[in-house]
């Protein structure tokens, strides 16, 4: 039986990534599961999987880049925003095509 994500400390969070971003990386995927306790660890995990991705999402301050929007369970997040197991994370940028 699968573990209850709310009760397992190792349960991953679900992360959606912008399609135009993941296309820049080999085997990039728009929906990934990552084990991370906060957004900073999430960025570390993405960097480990796709070297160079963190620089696309974060600047040198370090902080999330201003045009990158990270929402955790419907709320805008920062690098220090905690992630509970099973959290829904959206990383998105505006698109403009019409």
């Amino acid at each position, binding site marked *: 039986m699968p573990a209850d994500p709310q009760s397992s400390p190792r349960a991953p969070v679900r992360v959606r990534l912008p399609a135009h971003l993941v296309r820049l990386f080999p085997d990039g995927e728009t929906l990934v599961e990552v084990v991370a306790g906060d957004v900073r660890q999430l960025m570390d995990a993405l960097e480990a999987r796709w070297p160079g991705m963190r620089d696309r999402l974060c600047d040198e301050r370090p902080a999330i880049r201003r045009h990158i929007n990270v929402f955790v369970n419907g709320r805008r997040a920062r690098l220090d925003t905690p992630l509970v197991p099973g959290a829904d994370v959206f990383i998105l*940028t505006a698109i403009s095509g019409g």
Partner: protein
Amino acid sequence: MDSAMAFSPDEIERYARHIVLHDVGGPGQQKLKAATVLVVGAGGLGAPVLLYLAAAGVGRLILVEDDVVSLSNLQRQVIHRTQDVGRPKTDSAGDAIGALNPHVELVTHAMRLDAGNALDLIADADVVVDGSDNFATRYLVSDACVLAKKPLVTAALGAFDATVTTLRAHETAPDGTPNPTYRCLFPEPPPAGTVPACAEAGVLGALAGIAGSLAALEAIRAVVGFGEGLVGRLLMIDARAMRFETLSYGWDPDNPLTGTGDRITDLSAHVRIP
């Protein structure tokens, strides 16, 4: 009932499938007939928006579009025909709308919506639908709709992805919290070159039909009033994985339009230096 809004027998038959809907009915159809909707762009999104709003019996459509039809438009911009290549899109769209529903009044502006004309164009509209193809217009339209206190349905395309949301930033949620603005979701556009435009990245034609139809549905909802729309929710469509997801988002007190700090009070920041 205003006699000017009375339906002819032809209109009653034409709109019969709306009129029998419990949540639309005769009163809802009357609201559509009395409504004015401004559509920005007659491209991939604007095409289905215009066709569905005309078919639905929106009484007055205002179209702002400065482009002409090109052959590469026709893979997705289904309001235009092969023989329209080279014609202004306002003319081509006007012919299609007239042929579809002669009860619709179409007002066309063959110009680009800009900081100087945006508020005047929006002033006459009950609802605005943004199907434009660039960030500058999107931020201009969304700022202008907040200033003018108008509902805005905004849809966007990128390759296999599309987004749709509805903004009623001049209103509050039932708990008294202000509804979010577009800038609560996307405070800033991406730097030039980081998100490719459709011309470079391509766009799946039928996806424009999905997102445009959803935008038309949201505009009809805004006029008629039924169910739960996309205020405070961004619908994201991934056509590659055929996944539809919604992100709930709220009012950001740091947003520059309705936030607690300095506010944008006019469109001067959008004026382009020639």
